[in-house]
């Protein structure tokens, strides 16, 4: 596989098929954790981290455990259990080995098990038949795209706090309308890569 293909895959996962703005995966944390830049950055990093390693883990489980025994139909159950165990494991390892990193990412890790972006990436990897390298790169790209969207949103929402928004639109409704505008802007990237 060429370097070009890898770069194209990352770029497409970040800009064109952005997980939040084009594929609607991970909307809940996108709306819920985007009120401050710090927490948005922490959440984004935690999701990127988990997405990358879970892409590797679920790929291995699928190829080496489910396929040989003809158990592909169990993939949803297997993936969610792998992801849940992995998140717990990562939390434990971080706590033991890197207190600094644990302090930054720790509080966001338990929130990620039920984040649909993680399970979504695992399913997409299987659906598109990516190999191990492609899956890892796709997971990383998807996580970076999620972080980018989250940080953009947090930056805008910090300003929105000082705006005079109609009372009924305050909070989540205006966040969705803002997300629509960002998504509109991201559609401009669509012509960047021919798929």
């Amino acid at each position, binding site marked *: 596989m060429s370097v070009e293909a890898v770069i194209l895959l990352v770029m497409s996962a970040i800009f064109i098929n952005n997980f939040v*703005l*084009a*594929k*609607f*995966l*991970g*909307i*809940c*944390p996108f*709306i*819920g*954790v985007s*009120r401050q830049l710090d927490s948005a950055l922490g*959440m984004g990093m935690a999701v990127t981290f988990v997405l990358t390693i879970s892409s590797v883990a679920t790929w291995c489980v699928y190829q080496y455990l489910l396929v040989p025994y003809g158990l592909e*139909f*169990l*993939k*949803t*159950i297997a993936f*969610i*259990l792998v992801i*849940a165990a992995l998140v717990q494991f990562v939390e434990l390892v971080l706590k033991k080995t890197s207190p600094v990193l644990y302090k930054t990412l720790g509080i966001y890790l*338990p*929130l*990620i*098990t*039920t*984040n*649909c972006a993680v*399970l*979504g990436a695992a*399913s*997409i990897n299987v*659906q598109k038949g990516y190999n191990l390298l492609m899956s890892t790169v796709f997971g990383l790209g998807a996580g970076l795209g999620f972080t980018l969207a989250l940080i953009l949103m947090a930056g805008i929402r910090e300003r929105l706090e000082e705006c005079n928004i*109609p*009372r*009924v*639109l*305050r*909070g*989540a*409704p*205006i*966040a*969705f*309308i803002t*997300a*629509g*505008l960002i*998504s*509109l802007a991201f*559609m401009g990237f669509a012509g960047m890569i021919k798929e």
Partner: protein
Amino acid sequence: MNQIRKGIFKENPVFVIMLGLCPSLAVSTQVINGIGMGVAILVVLLGSNLVISLMRSMVPDTIRIPVFIVVIASFVTIVDLAMQAWLPSLADALGIFIPLIVVNCIILGRAEAFASKNSPFPSLLDAIGMSTGFMLSLLLLATIRELLGNGTMTLEILGIGTTIHVPFLEEHKAVIMILPPGAFFTMGLLMGLFNLIRKKSTGTANTLTWRDAHISHRRRDICCGGLVGRKNT
């Protein structure tokens, strides 16, 4: 009856409690997809609520979340396989959002907040109420998006049913409505509308908190990336 009614308006899962946002935004490009997703959720929720309610006294408290997730994932797999076998076109349109029902907070939330504490019959009613609310919300979103974006209402599956064409709207399509930005705009405006109506009827315009929806503190923090639905999020 009350059990069913509260799921539709006062505790509407999508616009008020903000659960299941990802599938609602993603599959509401066509009315039929919205209905399909709603039915899939109904089947999974009925099954998981029933089973979890039946084994509520057998499951130790500490491992209940993994147990719930495995029960839910089993029903999701059944629905996924059934849909691929009998309704392949719908399965294609819904894509990965069928397996993603596993992490949909409506299901896990109801298992935790209701089915694990109540007997089977009320749990089934609760499942019907919640999924009706979800389906109506999807129907509303999808109707608005498809009418404005394509000028049609697709109510057709496997050649059964029909597609309604609206003359004026079909000549003046606002394609943006069926693209991702349209989903965000429609969702934001509808949430605002729900706030407005609730403010008129009860005097408060704040989105309900998870606690108001009788969901325990711990669940609120793990579900759906947490933090959603707190006052004025």
